[in-house]
């Protein structure tokens, strides 16, 4: 368990560059979904990918910093309740760190299911519980409005991570050498 929270120089650098990528995708690469007025935020797929590779601390910070800075750039000031929820979901994605075997080239079948269960649970906690509750506590937004927004966000982000996150991990997996792939002749 201690491994999950170890912060090395590599974690820091991955956090910094991951957050820059997250920011970029968050602002420029949105895919409009078939449902009107909503779009898939590809940034969360990327956040999940980095979280699985570098652990929950990196995942949480990437989503938090990336979301806060892109909000600041676009709106002048971050919307704190959703920025915090982003951080929480990034952290939750990171709980799949070392559970998927992607570094050993074994990301298939069962690992894909494990990764997706973790990310869906993480999204539900972040967007259906934390974001609306903070919206009410911090901003006193109307209750039914924030929960509807939260449920839509959770669904959209789960779909995004399931598509983009999984495919990125599969692509990364293909570049890794499998354990025991060498035979003695």
């Amino acid at each position, binding site marked *: 368990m201690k491994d999950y929270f170890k912060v090395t120089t590599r974690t820091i650098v991955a956090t910094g*560059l991951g957050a820059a990528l997250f920011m970029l995708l968050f602002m*420029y690469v949105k895919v409009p979904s078939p449902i009107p007025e909503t779009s898939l935020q590809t940034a969360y797929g990327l956040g999940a990918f980095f979280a699985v590779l570098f652990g929950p601390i990196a995942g949480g910070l990437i989503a938090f910093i990336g979301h806060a800075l892109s909000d600041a750039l676009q709106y*002048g000031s971050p919307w704190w309740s959703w920025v915090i929820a982003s951080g929480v979901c990034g952290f939750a994605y990171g709980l799949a760190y070392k559970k998927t075997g992607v570094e050993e080239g074994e990301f298939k079948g069962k690992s894909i299911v494990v990764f997706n269960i973790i990310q869906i649970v993480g999204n539900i906690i972040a967007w259906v519980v934390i974001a609306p509750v903070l919206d009410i506590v911090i901003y006193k937004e109307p209750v039914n409005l924030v929960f509807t927004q939260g449920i839509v966000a959770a669904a959209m982000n789960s779909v995004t991570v399931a598509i983009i996150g999984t495919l990125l991990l599969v692509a990364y997996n293909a570049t890794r050498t499998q354990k025991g792939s060498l035979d003695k002749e």
Partner: protein
Amino acid sequence: MNSKLFSYNYIDTPVHRLSGLTKLIAFLFLTFAVMFSYDIRVILLVMVFSLFVLRLSKIKYRQIRLMVIYVAVFIITNAIITFFFSPEEGVKIYGTRHVLFKIAGPYVVTQEQLFYQLTKLFKYSSVIPLGITFLLTTNPSEFASALNGVGVHYKAAYAVSLTLRYFPDIQREYRNISLSQQARGLDMSKKAGFATRVKNALLIIIPLVFSTLDRIELISNAMDLRGFGKHNRRSWFSKKPFTTSDFIALFISVLIFTGTILVSVFINHGRFYNPFI
């Protein structure tokens, strides 16, 4: 696409001369004050103050036009959906009901709802000038030292500084990849269907991510070789020492913050100001 992250450039104004740490603390105090209060008098006061600071820092409209448009769209959308989802929110908060006119079904415009939404509109727009001033007058490399100054661990602060440092690079790379994929016939327009567009987004993201992963290895090796993270503290190259004006700025922001809290506790007895009773 603007390739410079914050269009920060140094002009000699009192706001630019303040240390980054002061500006961060003042920004946090003032935004928390506005976030906490639902009293339109307090909010308008902070708004006037923040517009004054914006003016003092000589920011031109050209620099912030895009932000202003985004914010206006956000605030208007928020106002419409708030009314759509809970037209009686104001009545619930203030406890009285003065009907102005009816629209249809449950959608009745009341004075309370109008007052609530007006307060909210000013509440959200009053922090924007503060955020803009903070972003445009703070040197990005001083930002990390300011974060460390308010108690964020230096490793996290350093991650933020890396983000700010590498964002323009990654943006440039994104543009190169995107253009070369389009030259090869990738359809980025609205004509393509949903599945194709997801696939096309991936065709840009994958090369971007893999080149970033290589860069992570390179940078972290370089930082390790220079002994990054060996100690519990570090010093910052771009840290400004405090001056008298820093203390004055801090004093004003603390004053506004405590003032807001005191008004809520002793005058309004809650976060809302109720003119209806």
